[in-house]
């Protein structure tokens, strides 16, 4: 009984540690980098670096193969969000051509406890998430563009990430030696 409780607590502690660590990272970046736009760029780049590795873990754990179409991709991103952030987003607002969708989250675990001050309204606090999606998609040959359509930190009801497929990347051939 008590062992089960401590396992549950361990999960909860991890989530808070994650949230606080992310917050410390953003705070430090703001201290180190004057410009809010640069902070946004750094967060996205860090997310990208995480994404290119996270995809391997996701594929190994979920046993997923290649996606049939972009809808399949959206479902896998949804699954990964559940796996890594512990929240279940909904997929909605598909474009007519099927190359753009929304990932809608009612709660965003990395923004628990966070309030954006007026002086930093240009900060895209959760920008790292966009980079993660971009980096992981690139590793499976999809070039995507992501942005926030809604952000709870900025007063919206939900946090909505828009994901658009730009193009499929061709398999690159290894460079020959001269």
């Amino acid at each position, binding site marked *: 009984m008590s062992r089960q409780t401590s396992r549950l607590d361990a999960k909860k502690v991890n989530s808070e540690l994650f949230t606080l660590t992310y917050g410390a990272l953003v705070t430090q970046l703001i201290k180190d980098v004057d410009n809010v736009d640069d902070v946004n760029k750094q967060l996205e780049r860090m997310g990208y670096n995480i994404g290119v*590795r996270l*995809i*391997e*873990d996701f*594929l*190994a*754990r979920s*046993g*997923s*193969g*290649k996606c049939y179409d972009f809808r399949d991709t959206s479902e896998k991103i949804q699954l990964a969000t559940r796996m890594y952030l512990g929240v279940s987003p909904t997929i909605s607002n598909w474009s007519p051509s099927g190359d753009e969708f929304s990932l809608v989250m009612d709660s965003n675990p990395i923004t628990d406890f966070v309030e954006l001050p007026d002086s930093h309204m240009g900060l895209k606090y959760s920008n790292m998430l966009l980079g993660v999606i971009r980096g992981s998609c690139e*590793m*499976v040959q999809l070039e995507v563009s992501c942005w926030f359509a809604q952000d709870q930190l900025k007063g919206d009801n939900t946090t909505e990430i828009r994901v658009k497929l730009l193009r499929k990347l061709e*398999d690159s*051939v*290894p*460079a*020959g*030696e001269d």
Partner: protein
Amino acid sequence: MVKIYNLYIFNNAGTLLHYAEWNRTKQSGITREHEAKLMYGMLFSIKSTNKYALHFYETPTGTKFVLNTDSTAGKMTEFLKNLNSQIFVEYAVKNPMVDLSQPIKNDLFSAKLDAFIKGSSLYVS
């Protein structure tokens, strides 16, 4: 019905006598000569066995595992999948100090890989 991609014929010195292709969909981007050298090199190192099996497993991200065994091995897909998830992902991908664009220089990875192979019930030295 078997799809035949291509054929290499080497003489005993490793010189490519003849190369022909019928259904090659992808080019390797290196010269024919270089490719032949690589092919011969690989064959040379497993020359001591008469028959062998080559197992191939590729992840959707393009990570490729090539495992050569004797011909008594059955399907090794599960084995390679586990190798990927338990060793490669755990000790290479998840280690930020490991550069995945270069040969992996990490003792922990090598040790865990070695233990995995030797510890598997399929391994016979």
